[in-house]
């Protein structure tokens, strides 16, 4: 998403912990204003570290970050004022009421009390009935909502959702997606981390994949979905082959190590998949088949592949 000034710009950011562990290796990333950006990655890939550094919770080792054009260290007040963070863990106070904790969050950001805004936030999150309840009496899902309400209490321009739907029931997940869409409509930029790929598919405008502390891919979701359209045909052979016969070269077949399986990747959206012709040519080449198997390659496969290579 070029042309626009990115709302968040991460340049050459690395993080080496005191233990010597390198959590981030020179990460570059721009987030455009108003987009929903999903940061995908396995556990320990550096998702939370990156978010924590942008939000000011963790110190970076090198690099620069700007939020709305403000350096997040030199102008931390302006930078942080734009950000709302929903952490991964259910870290809430226990004895405070929902209303008090949300008011507290707004106060921390130096904003004057605005009961009307807080009421709207709590109502949107179905928390209004619980506003006088102590947080410790709430269920896990409700606590998650409280964390979101706290992050929205100060009207952020960028909302970070760190694993928002980990261990969350279907209803809350749906509510959350609903809320995210609403925020996007209001022009709020959303960065979410997840290791659920459906979540990225469902929500994101762009997807970034992080693995081993490196961003290994940033792409429009539509582009990734095109890759999703690919399908694979696995052809089990009676007799193993040592090499793909020259007559079949045009199909770009993959031969398994044991020589028993040929894999053909094709595009289901294409005019011709080439399957009929391939089968005919297989017959011509004198290959005898034992079994056929097709499978859809998912974003998950692409992801696993990418992450596998990233290591």
């Amino acid at each position, binding site marked *: 998403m070029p042309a626009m000034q990115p709302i968040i710009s991460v340049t050459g950011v690395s993080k080496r912990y005191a233990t010597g562990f390198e959590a981030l290796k020179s990460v570059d990333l721009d987030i455009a204003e108003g987009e929903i950006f999903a940061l995908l990655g396995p556990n320990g890939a550096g998702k939370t570290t990156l978010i924590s550094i942008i*939000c000011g919770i963790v110190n970076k080792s090198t690099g620069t970050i700007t939020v709305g054009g403000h350096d997040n260290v030199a102008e931390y007040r302006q*930078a942080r004022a734009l950000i709302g963070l929903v952490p991964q863990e259910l870290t809430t106070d226990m004895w405070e009421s929902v209303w008090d904790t949300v008011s*507290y969050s707004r106060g921390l950001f130096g904003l*004057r009390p605005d009961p009307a805004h807080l009421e709207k936030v709590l109502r949107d999150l179905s928390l209004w009935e619980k506003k006088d309840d102590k947080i410790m009496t709430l269920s896990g899902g409700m606590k998650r909502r409280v964390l979101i309400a706290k992050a929205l209490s100060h009207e952020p321009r960028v909302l970070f959702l760190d694993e928002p739907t980990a261990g969350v029931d279907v209803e809350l997940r749906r509510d959350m997606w609903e809320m995210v869409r609403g925020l996007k409509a209001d022009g709020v930029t959303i960065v979410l981390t997840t290791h659920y790929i459906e979540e990225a598919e469902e929500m994101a405008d762009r997807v970034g994949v992080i693995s081993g502390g490196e961003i290994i891919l940033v792409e429009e979701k539509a582009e990734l979905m095109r890759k999703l359209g690919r399908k694979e045909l696995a052809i089990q052979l009676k007799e193993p082959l040592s090499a793909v016969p020259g007559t079949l070269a045009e199909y770009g077949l993959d031969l398994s190590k044991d020589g028993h399986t040929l894999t053909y990747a094709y595009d289901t959206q294409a005019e011709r998949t080439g399957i009929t012709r391939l089968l005919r040519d297989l017959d011509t080449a004198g290959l005898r088949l034992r079994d056929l198997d097709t499978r859809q390659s998912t974003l998950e496969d692409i992801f696993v592949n990418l992450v596998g290579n990233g290591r």
Partner: protein
Amino acid sequence: MNMRAIYAIYRQEMARTRRTLLQSIVSPVISTALYFVVFGAAIGSRMQEIDGVAYGTFIVPGLIMLSLLTQSISNAAFGIYFPKFMGTIYELLAAPISYVEIVVAFVGAAATKATILGLIILATAFLFVPLRIEHPFVMLVFMVLTAVTFSLFGFIIGIWADNFEKLQLVPLLIVTPLTFLGGSFYSIDMLPPFWRTVTLFNPVVYLVSGFRWSFFGQSDVNVVVSLGMTFVFLLACLGIVAWIFRTGYRLKT
């Protein structure tokens, strides 16, 4: 200055006190009242006057100091330790507030609580022993100064502690002995010369002595020295807090 943030933290901390009223106010008042009964009435009646002051009256400043110190430390230590323990500290670190503002809010709240408590104990003392305060203003200055200094100290402990045991360790192993040996219950002139010299390295001696001067107009150590030493502790604590925030020690990795 993000005054609203300071106020938000301060108010939250004070709300915690209201929730734990029994533990924060009632229990120290009761335990101090017990001291008055035991040392003031029971034992004190058989003790001779110290510098012309009845023993029961003599121990009042020391007892107030004792509560002031322990409460300042535990309030501030717990105040900052708890968000660390619960993980809610993320919110403080990600908010547009400076470290100075965080310290002012937490230390301000802890010192407020301790000072209120000190005044309540002072009021309680009036019920048990005849009491006069020669220099009320100086007394208040000492109270506030001590509360602020040791709230800072407690704040440092709260940041340093990474488990509940450590949180208790310093108050229990260092502060309580120093207070008891700091002349709360006796004049250091009553000690043999060697121990008297040793005692002069105990910072609490200066606090208790100066505080006592504000009550009775007499003290073991010159009041100016006492005030000076209190300021030295205050500056030392401020220095450590400044270092903590500059390095992000135990707060940011």
